[in-house]
C-alpha cells in the first residue's frame, strides 16, 4: 500500500492512472497536493486528460430534455447582469428593474442611487478575469475598430459621459441596430475588488449593460429601444444587479 511518503518518481508513475480517476482516494490526495507545486507533472496530467477526451469522443447527440432541465434551473440562478435578457433565446420578459419613482424627468441620474445593491458571486479578479483579459487582448483591435467606425457614423446615437468634477469622461455610441460601444477616456483604474459597471437608464428602469472591470477598455454592448441616459458606477467585484451608488460618470441622450 502506498503511504504518504511518495517519492517524485512514485507520483510520476501514477500520473496516467490519476488522470483517468483510477487511483485510490489517499493517492489522489497526495498527487493533488504535489501537482499544486509541480508544473511539469501538472502539464503531464493535462496532456493525459486531453488524450482521454479524444477517446471519449462520440457522435451521440446532446439530450434535449436535459437542456430543458438545465435552462429551468438557470431561472433560479443569480440575476443576469448584462444583456442576457435583452436578447433572449426563448421568449421571456426583458429583465428590467422597476423604478419606484413618480417623477423621473429630472432625476434620471438619481435613479442610479435608488436601488439596494445585490452583490453577485462572481469574482472578476479570479481566473475568469484572467481569461477575459486574454481574450480581450485578442479582440481589442476588432472591438476598437468597430467602435471607431461607429463613432464616425452620423446615424449613431452619441453620448458624452462626465463626472461631476469633469475629470472623468467616457463616450457611448450606439448604432440604430442596438450595437453600442463604451469608449472610456479618463476613468481612473479602480483598486482591487472594485469594478466599473455600465448602465442604460430608462424612465421606467435601469438596465445593466455589463461589468467593465477595474481598468475599462473599449467595450461592446447591445441595447435596443430608447435610453434616457448612460451611467457608469463603481461596484464591488462581480458587479451588482441593482446599484445604490452615485454614478462615476453619467451622460444624457439628447432628445
Amino acid at each position, binding site marked *: 500500500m502506498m503511504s504518504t511518503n511518495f517519492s517524485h518518481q512514485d507520483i510520476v508513475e501514477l500520473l496516467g492512472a490519476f488522470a*483517468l480517476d*483510477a487511483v485510490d482516494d489517499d493517492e489522489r490526495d497526495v498527487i493533488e497536493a504535489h501537482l499544486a507545486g509541480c508544473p511539469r507533472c501538472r502539464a503531464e496530467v*493535462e496532456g*493525459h486528460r486531453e488524450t*482521454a477526451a479524444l477517446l471519449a*469522443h462520440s457522435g451521440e447527440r446532446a439530450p434535449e430534455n*436535459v437542456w430543458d432541465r*438545465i435552462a429551468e434551473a438557470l431561472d433560479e440562478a443569480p440575476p443576469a447582469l448584462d444583456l442576457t435578457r435583452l436578447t433572449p433565446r426563448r421568449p421571456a420578459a426583458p429583465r428590467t428593474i422597476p423604478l419606484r419613482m413618480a417623477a423621473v424627468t429630472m432625476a434620471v441620474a438619481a435613479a442610479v442611487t435608488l436601488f439596494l445593491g445585490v452583490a453577485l458571486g462572481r469574482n472578476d479578479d479570479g481566473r*475568469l478575469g484572467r481569461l477575459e483579459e486574454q481574450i480581450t487582448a485578442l479582440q481589442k483591435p476588432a472591438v476598437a475598430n468597430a467602435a471607431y467606425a461607429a463613432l464616425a457614423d452620423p446615424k449613431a446615437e452619441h453620448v458624452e459621459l462626465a463626472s461631476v468634477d469633469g475629470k472623468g469622461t467616457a463616450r457611448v455610441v450606439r448604432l440604430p441596430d442596438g450595437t453600442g460601444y463604451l469608449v472610456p477616456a479618463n476613468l481612473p483604474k479602480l483598486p482591487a475588488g472594485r469594478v466599473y459597471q455600465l448602465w442604460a437608464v430608462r424612465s421606467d428602469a435601469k438596465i445593466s449593460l*455589463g461589468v467593465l472591470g477595474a481598468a475599462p477598455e473599449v467595450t461592446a454592448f447591445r441595447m435596443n429601444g430608447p435610453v434616457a441616459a448612460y451611467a457608469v458606477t463603481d461596484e464591488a467585484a462581480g458587479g451588482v444587479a441593482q446599484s445604490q451608488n452615485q454614478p462615476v460618470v453619467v451622460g444624457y441622450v439628447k432628445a
Partner: protein
Amino acid sequence: MPADEIRDASDPMLVVAIGRYRQEALAEAYRRHAGAVFALSRRLLIDRNLAEEVVQEVFLRLWHRPEKFDPDRGSLRSFLLAQTHGRSVDILRSEVSRRRREERDARETAEADYDIEHAVVDMAVADDVRQAMAVLPVGERAAIELAYFGGHTYREVAALLDEPEGTVKSRIRSGLRRLRTVLVDTGIGA
C-alpha cells in the same frame, strides 16, 4: 458579444460570456459538448437517467463556477469530460460499494469477468479512435479501457487482469502517451 456571434465564438469566449450570465452561451457550450459528456457518462454508468443527471450537474457547474475553467490548462472539452468522468466514477464507486456490501465477496469475481468483456468489446468510441486504440499493445489497451470506460482503479484493473499493480499503472501511463502520439499523427489530436 452580440447574440448572433455566440455561435462563432471560441470555447474560451463562450466561458467568458457564461461568466456574464449569458444563457445562450451556455446553450452553445451544451450544443457543442453535451453529446460527448452524455456519451462518456452513459458509457460508465450504463443507466441513462444517472448519466443525464451527470450531464445536468456538469453544465450547471460550468454556469455557477465558470472561473474553474482555465484555457491555459487544456480545452473546454477535456475540462468538461474530466469532470464528467470524475463524477460518474464517484457514482459508480458508491453504487458498486453499496452493491458489494449487499452481495458480499462471493459474487465479485463473476461481476469482474463480465466487466472485462463489457469494457473491451463494447467500446463506444469513434472508429478513428478505435483504430488508434488498436495499435496499442493489448496490455496497455485493456488497462486504459478498464480504467477509463470501466471506471476501475488501477488496483482493480490489476486484480481483474491478474497483473502486478506496478505493471498496470505503468501501462496506463505509457499507453496514454503512445495514444497521444498516434492520435496526433493521424490528426485527431492535433
